[in-house]
């Protein structure tokens, strides 16, 4: 299952750092993402951007996570050569991440 079926996302940027929120549609989705959307898995998904460091912050009160990817914006919006210099599209790419299907929890989905 892709993250997209469990959550929505928005991307922000500050300098050369991208932050991507992942917000679960419901409690079951949050539980699964909490277990499966690890920093390591996410770093592999974004490997082509060669993040220097990835951090995850959990916000259980709103069933959300904030991922902070350092060094992924080609120098940041003012000097990046990228077509999407803000990295605005990265959140949609996050939703494409495929989660392992060995999840034992129940009641997933929207």
């Amino acid at each position, binding site marked *: 299952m892709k993250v997209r079926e469990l959550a929505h996302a928005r991307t*922000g940027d*500050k300098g050369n750092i991208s*932050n991507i*929120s992942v917000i679960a549609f419901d409690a079951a989705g949050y539980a699964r993402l909490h277990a499966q959307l690890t920093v390591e898995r996410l770093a592999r998904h974004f490997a082509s951007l060669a993040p220097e460091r990835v951090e995850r912050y959990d916000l259980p*009160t709103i069933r959300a996570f904030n991922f902070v990817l350092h060094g992924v914006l080609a120098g940041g919006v*003012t*000097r990046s*050569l990228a077509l999407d210099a803000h990295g605005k599209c990265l959140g949609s790419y996050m939703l494409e991440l495929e989660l392992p299907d060995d999840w034992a929890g129940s009641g997933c989905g929207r």
Partner: protein
Amino acid sequence: MTSIRIGSGAGYSGDRIDPAVELAEHGDIRYLGFECLAERTIALAQLARLTDPDAGYDPLLDARFRAVLPVCHRRGITVITNMGAANPAAAARRTREIARELGLSGLKIAYIAGDDVLARVRDDEFELMETGAPASSLGDRIISANAYLGMAPIIEALRAEADVIITGRVADPALFAAPIVHEFGWPTDDWRRMGQATVVGHLLECAGQITGGYFADPGYKDVAGLARLGYPLAEVDADGSAVITKVAGSGGCVTPATCSEQLLYEIHDPARYLTPDVIADFSQVRLEPDGPDRVRVVGAGGRARPERLKVSIGYRDGFIGEGQISYGGAGAVERGRLALDIVRERLALTGVACDEIRAELIGLNALFEGQADQYPPEVRARVAGRTASAQAAACIGNEIEALYTNGPAGGGGSQKSVREVIAVASTLLARSAVSPAVHCLEV
């Protein structure tokens, strides 16, 4: 005072104007904030001021104020905006002219100076947060340095009963937090309340981004009426809790989902959101439904404000040249790749020095490099490169354009551009080195 209503009329410099007029006309608001100053915008504005001492404020200030000042004046709505950018004094003078042209009188226009700390940054040794190098290593390439001011000078202007308050660089949430703190008379070292005022400001600062703008994803997150998206307003109670809502009948939506996305927008550690006024803690915020298009926000906290202020330094950083051309139909990807190879080889052959180059096929690998493997019906070849001179930058687009008669078959729709890069770096400066000042003009 039990509750105040604050609207957000812009989330960036080029934002729509009619939703702000709608808020002023029908939002029953007491304050209307306009956040129009991105990190890169102030450096570009400083560049404009270098060539014209009366320039350097927001390019849409005229259009925006012509549209909203009459209704705000009529309804007693105080306007707070950072449209002053690099030149709040000139922005205030221009606003006075506009008010006169509109026949408005009895208007007090305040502007806030003191965020420009260029002289200070040139004279002393400051470390750049991004690289650890001294700011002096940028030498005469530095064109601007602006410290992020907090809400204090805005509150001072509110106490002076200003009708329009124009700032340069201030922390974005302060535009909205200042009237909350002013109305309720909160002590500015009540960190929990400063955190709550800051979360309201942060939620409002991007305008339509919390009312369903930048949110729609058909089939997953449907939003009605995006062409007439309503901008948000907050009803803030004396205990600091707030409801985010919008004008009834406007397009868009306000839900816990839209508010969650905006809560985390451009945030790193949610428990440590640094502003000049407080280290805000959003990690325990709750977003509760409170009726249709109404979401209650509670639970923000805070700790003592940082000792030093963040400073954005703008500096000249060479040029970017770019060219694009499209290939479609049979073999489009192969011809596109050939085009990129030709341009790379030509730039090497003709000795165009690029510090960095990016060659890609839009529709195949421009957004998620190395990830796409599907072959589309068309691609757009794009080459962008960083150079020391404008002349060298121009060569890149010229080589793309020359593909018309020298490259693969069937290229079409070539475009090219050159722009000077004004990059931004950050440093920290002691509060004591910054002296905000409020000045007033009257009509």
